[in-house]
């Protein structure tokens, strides 16, 4: 039997891998990919908690579903922004996005 903590450690590791990617990547698309990894690690947690700690409930499952839905929407929006950025700046380097603050 695998204890729930192992699954949590897995998800945590995945999360920090995603975080590492998010911080180190310069390319917006790869940053988005890192973000997806982090979201997935969270999903793993939800499902694991639901299964191991509260099998009688569905809350974790539903959270996962909603997160996936939100992630899809977010990815779509992000991609559209990235493409738009690329059209105007001919680059998707994250440094170019600092122009947003002006």
């Amino acid at each position, binding site marked *: 039997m695998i204890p729930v903590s192992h699954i949590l450690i897995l998800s945590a590791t995945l999360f920090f891998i995603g975080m590492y990617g998010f*911080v180190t990547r310069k390319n917006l698309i790869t940053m988005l990919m890192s973000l997806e990894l982090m979201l997935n690690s969270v999903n793993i947690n939800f499902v694991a908690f639901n299964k191991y700690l509260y099998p009688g409930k569905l809350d974790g499952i539903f959270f996962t579903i909603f997160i996936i839905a939100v992630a899809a929407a977010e990815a779509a929006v992000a991609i559209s922004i990235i493409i738009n950025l690329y059209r105007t700046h001919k680059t998707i380097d994250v440094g170019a996005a600092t122009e947003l603050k002006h």
Partner: protein
Amino acid sequence: MGGYEHTLWTLFLPVISFVLLGLFGRKYFSKSAGLIGVFLLLLTTALSLYTAYQYFFVNGLVDGIYQKIDAFKFTWLTFSPGVSIDMGIMLDPISVMMLVVVSSVSLMVHIFSLGYMKGEERFATYYSFLGLFTFAMLGLVVSSNLFQMYMFWELVGISSYLLIGFHFQRPSAVAASKKAFIVTRFADLGFLIGILMLAFYGGSLDFNTIIQHLSAQQSSAYLAATTASFLGVTALTWGLTLVFMGGAGKSAMFPLHVWLPDAMEGPTPVSALIHAATMVVAGVYLVARLFPLYALNGASLEIVLNVGLFTALFAAIIACTQTDIKRVLAYSTMSQIGFMMFALGVSGTQGEQGLGYTASMFHLFTHAFFKSLLFLGAGAVIHFVHSNEMKDMGGLRKWMPLTHLAFLIACLAIAGIPPFAGFFSKEEILLATYNKSIWVYAIALITSGLTAFYMFRLYFSIFWRKEYNGHSHPHEGTMSMKIPLIILAVCSALVGLIPFGKFVSVGNQPLETHFHLMFSILPIIIGVAGILIALLMYKKENDRPQNMAQAFGNFYRAAKNRFYMDELYLFVTKNIIFKWVGRPSAWFDRKVVDGSMDEIANLTLETSKAIKGLQSGKVQRYAMYFFGGIAFLIILFVYILK
């Protein structure tokens, strides 16, 4: 005890004059203001004379003692149980005496001003200020409560300020008014603290209660006041000395006298009223009011004695050297008040020993008449000569015979020549000092000789010395200026004959004063000698005064410069208070306190500039901060604050 309802009106009538003329005078009574003022004052005087009659001859004397009568009293402001300011009218021999003096001198000045101030732009304002002063002074003398006295004391001060600065366009008048008020205010600080101390130990502000509590040797209040001490001096002595400081300020005692000579910038009738006859003797009156306490407390009475004695001599010396006639009179006033003070200082509490007290009040009484006469006479002279300086006068006796005669009577009175008023009061003072100490007597005698000298120096310089050759044409004034001179001259000549001790004495028991003929010879001789010296030096123009001045050399110069007291004060205020206290506080406020507030603001600004860099717009950096923050919170909550 009833029957004194009218006394209240002696206070109200001047108030009516003040309010009526102050608010509407400019518009409606610009011409008639004087008559209104005189009329109201006439009523006041009549009422106070009636009060005096009633008190002294009808119902004041019960069981051989003049009773203290509270004619009127209501609680004005309660501080704490027992300690309250009561507004009241207390009648006892000295307050009734002062009531008469103040109202009658004020009436004289009101009448005199009709002519003197005629044509002034602010004629009505002048009369309203006079009304205010009269009210305040009357309120002061009838006070039943220490704090009531302080209030009227301040009001007297402010009306003096307003009247000195009446010619507000003259910078010297402005400066003088300012000086007068500030110096007396400084003295009042002492008075106020003294009041607080006496009220604290006496448990009341009422004169009678304080005296009762603090003069009973066994009472707990007395013990508390005499055991508590500061710098080795008992609290009671401190309190009385501080109260005396207030009196000394008002009465221009050394070293708080500097304002009085300058106060002569005011219109001369004002000087006659305020700075000669009434307000300046308030200090003496104050000490007399609290005399039972002073008499029990040797140390503070000693101070009163020494200050009075020194001022009397000091002012007399200066008076001999001044050339401005009003300043001579001012220094003479100081000197005479010094007489009154030290007369109180040598007095005891019982019977014959209390002669000093009677003498002091008597001198106050007579002095009010002859000194206001001197001032009014000087005012008449100044009015027509348009100068205060002796050198512009001389030989005026032919032009102004009535003024001359009145002035002569006043001079004889102040010099102590019988049978004029001053003789009797001064004799009593000298007698009282003689009984106390031979040294005090000697100094008093010298001073009285000097008095005779400088007064006749003044007299001869104005009316004799040379033929008048000025530009103006002096002549006698209008009727309104003559009448007060005549009345006051008659009073100056005759009031000395009043058996004063019968009415005013330390225990309020009629005191039989004996007239010692043998004793009087020496003072008379000295007085006559003073007059003769003045006659020799000033009757005709000659160079004796110069020779004399040269003989005294530096001393003369110092006296002529009033012993540099003004310079000393100027140094203290300008260089010490302004330069070393005022300016640093202003600087400290702007630079340090305000500066630190500004610095705090700047610091905030700088910090915000510094942390602005964090807001770089770089997503990854934000992410780092975000994770860092979460890590921090986890550490904080899970591991540190577990």
